[in-house]
């Protein structure tokens, strides 16, 4: 049996006596530890997994697509300085007719080189790769196979440019190119509705009429390569063959989504944990400071008995360390649990072959160390005070805290404030730093809720804008090749189609001065009612008769405003360039865009109107007939059902809403209760005598409680506007952080958001205050007064 020293016994008893306060602090600290652990752990796991996966499977650095280039061009690219490996592929879109699925699905066909791929090497999950000589054998993404219940040997149909192919699955794969997969036009992964199909090179080339040619290029660079120069050289080489512009990993869909997730994790683990550690340090400081004040006489006695100053200081530091240890323990547990949950969430959206588990001991140790340091820093002042107390002074009662009269007194007198209000006010002014930190702590609880509510409101606004104001069509048919306006007439004859609006997407590079952007100009008919452009006030704004309309982000990127001129450089099958005036700026949250009237664009190109996509308004009663017809439609690359996109987006978001709401309310309540409860407990301890005196003077319980809780109430109320402001700032920072070419979110801050945040935190403050009030009600008045402070 271990013999505990008397001082250690005191330590353990103190901890037990302070269990509620200690737990409140420990939980705040635990939040910091858990989020730090999860954030940093997941960042490291994702980074390690990516690096490992990319290097093993030779993930390319540069990607390019081209209309049709002869294979001899590959050698030209390989000779560019800095290029290590080049691989040409055939790629194409197909409509899939899957057994047991009414709606047409989409597929992306990629060719498998005869001797096996060198770059973006897929990983065999099950079965085997298709025989290079077979015409109908394919391998598909593992997720696509599982989502559709396919086994090896199963067959399905693909319609490539109107030709129906009967394909047989020989194996399932996953690829570093498709860790995150978005269906064309989709916003969320759709495993059942979209799959990657690997086809032997010869069969793929035959299917898309590219024998002896390629339309997709991947390039792996040497370490010393200059990325921008290589991209320029590749563009120059491919331009004559209809190159649409090479790009690096940053705009590769899968990679960019993972990077966005990583950025979010990084900012979460950089912003949130310091808040929790800071609050925990403040709470430790406040509570230990009070304990040392209360134990003055004991400290004097211990010193008189011969304990050294360092032993006394260590004693109080150890109390903080014990509280921290509890918090760290809880934080480790919660962090491990959160990490597991996050890994599971990632497994749903990302297709990693393996995930390096984020249970690194050093991350745990680091989180624990930071937790210990926070508590230690918080305890320093109290430990220092305890160490510095001279025994003779310590054993005498402390001088009453000195108050001074100030400007506030004149104001209070003028306001005819009752004495009880003066007590509350002077309490706040006497310890302004403590009051400020308490208000700040409470406001952080508010701001976390404001920021989390903001995300939800903002996504609502995105959905509303993207689907109900802007892209109102039920479906979009993407054509495999450009067509004339007769495609509109054909589509109108499809069953269940009520309205058709054509769209022409033209790949270009927009230039303004030294700035440029590769994208597609979207041209539509004037007066279109399905896909519409919106102004910055989210109101429908018609396409300009002349000139081009740019999305805000694009205009900002190019540094242009209405009235300026941009240079349009054609790419793909067309070449040449012309100038266009910027007519207006439009607002959109998903992607970037440039818009024109169809006739205006056709005139510039000196050709008749062309169509690459059709937006449909559908009679839902005839949906199944339409779906069947689409499976047979020639020239269809893919059919995007926007109603499904909308639903899957909303489903995903509403699930995130649930997780977020629970998580952030928990976090906010822990902070709020931790700060409010400890604040009120210390008030109670400091004011016990005064409050007992007032009770004896005939003040009622309610009156006395109002003094005790008045300070907490005032600080909580002051914390609200501060919390709103901090929350608005965090929201703004999040909005800025999310801003990318893929998507951005609007700054939506509603009164309902602020009200919700305030209601929840004020309820938590009230609960904490009531807990303390219960202690006050139970206090023995006489006993308090008969003791010397």
């Amino acid at each position, binding site marked *: 049996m271990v013999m505990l020293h008397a001082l250690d016994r005191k330590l353990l008893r103190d901890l037990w006596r302070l269990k509620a306060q200690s737990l409140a602090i420990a939980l705040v600290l635990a939040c910091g530890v858990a989020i730090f652990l999860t954030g940093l752990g997941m960042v490291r796991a994702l980074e390690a997994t990516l690096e490992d996966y990319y290097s093993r499977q030779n993930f390319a650095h540069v990607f390019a697509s081209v209309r049709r280039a002869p294979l001899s061009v590959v050698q030209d690219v390989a000779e560019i300085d800095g290029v290590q490996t080049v691989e040409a592929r055939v790629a194409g879109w197909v409509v899939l007719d899957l057994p047991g699925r009414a709606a047409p699905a989409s597929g992306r066909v990629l060719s498998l080189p005869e001797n096996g791929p060198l770059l973006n090497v897929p990983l065999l999950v099950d079965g085997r790769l298709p025989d290079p000589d077979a015409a109908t054998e394919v391998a598909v993404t593992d997720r696509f196979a599982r989502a559709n219940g396919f086994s090896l040997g199963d067959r399905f149909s693909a319609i490539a440019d109107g030709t129906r192919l009967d394909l047989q699955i020989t194996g399932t794969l996953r690829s570093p190119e498709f860790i995150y997969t978005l269906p064309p036009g989709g916003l969320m992964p759709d495993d059942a509705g979209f799959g990657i199909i690997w086809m032997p090179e010869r069969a793929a080339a035959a299917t898309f009429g590219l024998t002896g040619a390629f339309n997709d290029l991947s390039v792996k660079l040497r370490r010393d390569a200059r990325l921008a120069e290589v991209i320029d050289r590749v563009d120059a080489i491919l331009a004559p063959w209809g190159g649409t512009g090479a790009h690096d990993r940053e705009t590769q869909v899968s990679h960019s989504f993972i990077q966005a997730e990583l950025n979010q994790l990084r900012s979460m683990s950089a912003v949130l944990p310091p808040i929790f550690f800071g609050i925990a340090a403040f709470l430790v400081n406040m509570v230990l400071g009070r304990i040392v004040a209360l134990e003055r006489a004991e400290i004097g006695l211990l010193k008189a008995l011969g304990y050294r100053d360092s032993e006394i200081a260590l004693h109080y530091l150890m109390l903080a360390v014990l509280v921290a240890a509890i918090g760290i323990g809880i934080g480790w547990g919660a962090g491990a649990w959160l990490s597991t949950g996050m890994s599971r969430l990632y497994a749903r959206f990302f297709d990693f072959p393996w995930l390096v588990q984020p249970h690194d001991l050093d991350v745990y140790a680091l989180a624990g160390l930071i937790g210990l340091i926070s508590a230690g820093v918080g305890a320093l002042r109290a430990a220092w005070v305890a160490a510095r107390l001279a025994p003779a002074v310590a054993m005498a009662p402390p001088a*009453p805290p000195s108050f001074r009269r100030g400007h506030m007194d004149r104001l209070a007198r003028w306001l005819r404030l009752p004495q009880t209000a003066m007590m509350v006010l002077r309490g706040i002014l006497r310890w302004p730093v403590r009051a400020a930190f308490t208000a700040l702590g409470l406001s952080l609880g508010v701001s976390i809720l404001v920021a989390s509510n903001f995300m939800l409101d903002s996504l609502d606004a995105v959905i509303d804008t993207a689907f109900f104001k802007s892209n109102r069509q039920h479906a979009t048919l993407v054509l495999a090749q450009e067509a004339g306006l007769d495609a509109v007439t054909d589509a109108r004859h499809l069953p269940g189609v009520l309205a058709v609006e054509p769209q022409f997407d033209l790949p270009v590079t927009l230039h303004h001065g030294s700035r440029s952007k590769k994208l597609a100009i979207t041209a539509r008919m004037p007066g279109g009612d399905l896909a519409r452009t919106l102004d910055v006030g989210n109101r429908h704004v018609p396409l300009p008769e002349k000139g081009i309309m740019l999305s805000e982000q694009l205009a900002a990127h190019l540094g242009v405003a209405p009235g300026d001129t941009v240079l349009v450089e054609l790419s793909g099958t067309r070449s040449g360039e012309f100038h266009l005036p910027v007519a207006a700026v439009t607002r959109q949250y998903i992607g970037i865009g440039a818009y024109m009237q169809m006739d205006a664009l056709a005139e510039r190109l000196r050709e008749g109107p062309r169509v690459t996509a059709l937006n449909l308004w559908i009679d839902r009663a005839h949906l199944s007939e339409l779906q069947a017809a689409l499976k047979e439609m020639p020239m269809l690359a893919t059919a995007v059902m926007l109603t499904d996109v909308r639903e899957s987006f909303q489903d995903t978001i509403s699930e995130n809403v649930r997780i977020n709401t629970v998580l952030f309310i928990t976090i906010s309540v822990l902070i709020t209760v931790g700060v409010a409860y400890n604040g009120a407990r210390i008030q109670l301890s400091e004011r016990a005598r005064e409050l007992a005196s007032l009770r*004896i*003077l005939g*003040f009622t319980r309610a009156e006395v409680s109002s003094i005790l809780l008045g300070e907490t109430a005032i600080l909580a109320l002051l914390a609200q506007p501060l919390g709103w402001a901090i929350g608005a700032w965090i929201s703004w920072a999040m909005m800025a952080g999310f801003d990318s070419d893929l998507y951005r979110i609007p700054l939506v801050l509603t009164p309902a958001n602020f009200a919700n945040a305030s209601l929840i935190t004020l309820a938590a403050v009230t609960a904490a205050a009531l807990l303390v009030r219960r202690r006050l009600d139970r206090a023995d008045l006489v006993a308090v007064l*008969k003791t010397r402070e």
Partner: protein
Amino acid sequence: MTRDIDTSATSNGSAETVFRTRGLTKVYGGNGTAEVRALDGVDLDLPEGELVVLLGPSGSGKSTLLNIIGGLDHATSGQAWFRDRELTKMTDRQLTRYRRDHVGFVFQFYNLVASLTARENVALVTDVAADPMDPDEALDLVGLSGRMDHFPAQLSGGEQQRVAIARAIAKRPGVLLCDEPTGALDSKTGTAVLAALEQVNARFGTTTLVITHNAGIRKMAHRVIRFHDGRVAEIEQNAHRVSASEIEW
């Protein structure tokens, strides 16, 4: 040994009874722990307007009596009346009301509110009392007219105690209950505090009960009650009272 009080023998000869107790008993502990009978069947009648000193060793029951008749504690059995109202039947809420309207307390430790000035500490009471005196007047009575805007930290112990007395009397209480009011003071400041009590009693006729360990103080009382083992051991009346300033410490 308890003796019945001769109620006719009061200072002014015709006063009514302000406190009356019958068989008043307070037992602490029980249920497994050792029982302590702090008050053991006390019968007492105290006339209006007197300055009464309660003497007795620690644990003899004098503070317990003060707490019960001051409405701070409940008796285990027996009855206690304030004028015609039975305190032992009152709820906590009614006792709060009773303290607010009728009782002034002074304790050994002054229990002033540190964040309020002397005047404001008094105003704390006058704000809620039915017929209070002006805080300035109350402080003047205890000789503190020059220190009204000082905070407790800026006052000496004796001054703080006099603020506590001013606070206790400012609502014109029916009774003033003092538990060791000079216990923490030296003789000079203690004398000033006693003089303040004496003046309040003489000027307003406020019945004043003073618990003390200092037997010298008994000389200023109308009546001295000695406690022993939870009972009233002896009651004596002072034929010749001396003023506070003459009391030897």
